[in-house]
């Protein structure tokens, strides 16, 4: 059932570890999302994510404090080795997770056929950018919520919402993918590993930093992603955020290393009837998650109490700016300055 538009906007926070989960819940997350160790989710990093016992502890902790747990199972099952994905669905059910975040129709079909009461959220990795696309997954797999890709404008979000029979969740804060998620093979083109096939983008194992006469270079599997002068801030070489040459001009040809912050849009998101706002960053530290959650909790409560007077407080913005490592904040596609 679709929630009435008056339902509170849910704050959904990342948990890359049990510690991050606990801090997010304590700081006011309505729900946390997490993944199992391995390739079954789109943040497959060493030292991150949950094993079986941690999952049980995490669900118990969250439920004990009135928060929900969503499990991300949003990469695509490997041909000939689908069992880890199916077992992860079973594990989510056994642990009492409140919903599964899914992208692969193989996984959705398994959940539908074996656990028909399990709540399914459509992952951003499913690349559903229109109400027709969302409706496809609702009709065939019974998804109850869709997370919208970070490429839609605010008015497009509103349009999708008005024509959808499921809840809508949008990204609020964190790293910005300029490419449509679930349809980006840039990483596998360079490293053989991609978000779809192994749950990683520009994997750390392929990164090399080298000091050269022309500056410090970052390479991904040998491909020069960026070169920094001594006084330039250096960023992780996510390959769409590198500097490249087009027609003799060197520039950020795809995406500048900015970070998404849609906090100023909170009253509008609520007015549109957006059901949940998601904070990106399961790969971030527990301390980061705690601070971002606390700021967004305050902001959402303030926007609910007095939507017409809402403005992001300077100390919130400062905290988020500091956490984003000095990067510029942007409203991303919501405000599409490039349109």
């Amino acid at each position, binding site marked *: 059932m679709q929630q009435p538009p008056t339902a509170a906007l849910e704050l959904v926070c990342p948990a890359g570890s049990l510690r991050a989960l606990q801090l997010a819940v304590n700081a006011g997350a309505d729900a946390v999302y997490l993944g199992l160790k391995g390739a079954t989710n789109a943040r497959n990093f060493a030292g991150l994510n949950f094993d079986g016992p941690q999952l049980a502890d995490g669900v118990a902790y969250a439920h004990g404090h009135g928060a929900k747990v969503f499990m991300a199972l949003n990469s*695509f*099952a*490997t*041909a*000939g080795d*689908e069992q880890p994905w199916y077992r992860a669905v079973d594990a989510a059910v056994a642990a009492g997770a409140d919903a599964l975040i899914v992208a*692969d*129709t*193989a996984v959705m*079909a398994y959940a539908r056929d074996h656990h028909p009461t399990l709540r399914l959220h459509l992952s951003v990795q*499913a*690349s559903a*950018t*229109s109400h*027709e*696309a*969302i*409706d*496809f*997954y609702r*009709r*065939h797999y019974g998804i109850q919520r869709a997370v919208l890709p970070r*490429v*839609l*404008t605010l008015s*497009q979000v509103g*349009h999708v919402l008005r024509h959808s029979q499921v809840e809508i969740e949008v990204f609020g804060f964190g790293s910005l993918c*300029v*490419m*449509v998620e*679930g*349809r*980006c*093979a*840039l990483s*596998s*083109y*360079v*490293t*053989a590993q991609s978000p*779809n*096939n192994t749950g990683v983008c520009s994997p750390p194992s392929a990164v090399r930093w080298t000091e050269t006469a022309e500056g410090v270079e970052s390479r991904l*599997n040998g*491909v*020069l*992603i*960026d070169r920094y002068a001594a006084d330039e801030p250096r960023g992780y070489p996510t390959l769409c955020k590198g*500097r*490249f*040459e*087009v*027609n003799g*001009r*060197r520039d950020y*040809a*795809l995406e500048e290393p900015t970070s998404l912050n849609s906090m100023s849009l909170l009253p509008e998101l609520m007015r549109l009837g957006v059901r949940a706002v998601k904070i990106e960053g399961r790969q971030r530290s527990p301390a980061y998650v705690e601070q971002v959650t606390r700021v967004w909790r305050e902001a959402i409560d303030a926007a609910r109490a007095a939507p017409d007077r809402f403005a992001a407080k300077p100390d919130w913005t400062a905290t988020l700016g500091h956490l984003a490592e000095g990067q510029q904040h942007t409203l991303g*596609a919501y405000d*599409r300055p*490039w*349109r």
Partner: protein
Amino acid sequence: MAMESTRFALTVGPVLTYWPRQSMLNFYAEVADSSADTVVLGEVVCSRRHEMKPDDWLALATELRTAGKEVVLATQILIESESDLRTLRRIAEQREFLVEAGDASALNVLTQGGAPFVLGPHINIYSRSALHEHARLGAVRWVAPAELPLASLAHVNPPADPVRARGEHAPALATEVLAFGRLPLAFSARCFTARHHRLSKDQCEFRCADDADGLLLSTSDGHPFLALNGIQTQSAAQHCLIDAREALHAAGVTRLRLSPCAQHFDEVVTLFERVMNQGAPATEALQALGAMSLPGGLANGYATGRPGMQWAGA
């Protein structure tokens, strides 16, 4: 006769870059005379492009069918607006030609209408179960995601035990792979070509028409890396599986997609026909393709599960 039973159907993929109307018509006049079996038509990248209108595509489709080609109409890959959906419905609701679904919006319209359809390369089919799900809904052919290795294709749709289309005595789903052309690697709401020219997307002046094969992007140390094609990012290298005939057969592939380029495309089709279907040696054909390749050369890494940009010798 032995060759006949194992013929690879050759599919001309949609033109991904933006060409003037006359270039487009000239191109398809050559395709009509080529040994290609199937032609996929339509603007799949950007809804602003207007050299060919929906009626033009339909007229062209009829002409190519008269010339003996199977014609498939493709829907746009990134659907963002109601106007995009209107165009999509116009294609997906006609019954004269088979439709290739570009995204799940198209799947929704097609499955409601009950028509058979082709799964385009951007529908994420990574396992047999996912393919089976779509076959149940009416898929009759699938174009594998470019990054999927041939070994995985053999798991998804094994030649010995293929996924079948719905219905009794239904035929096996045909597996098609991209066998030649720049790889479509990513899509964005942002137009990178307009961005490069310091223009906004809505006032882009259609500058993507300046570059018939896209705008080359190189690394800072001068290596051709990617090609910008409006909202689409392609590989600079042209993916090429002309020397993988046996491996393609073993993986259950029966159809090869050749993605158009502005120059020498008729030669590309001829070379694939000779090597794949007439027993000509791959070595010379590969040399010829290398000599006429775009900046970035040839690559085939994806076929063996390596980085897509690499060239792995047989």
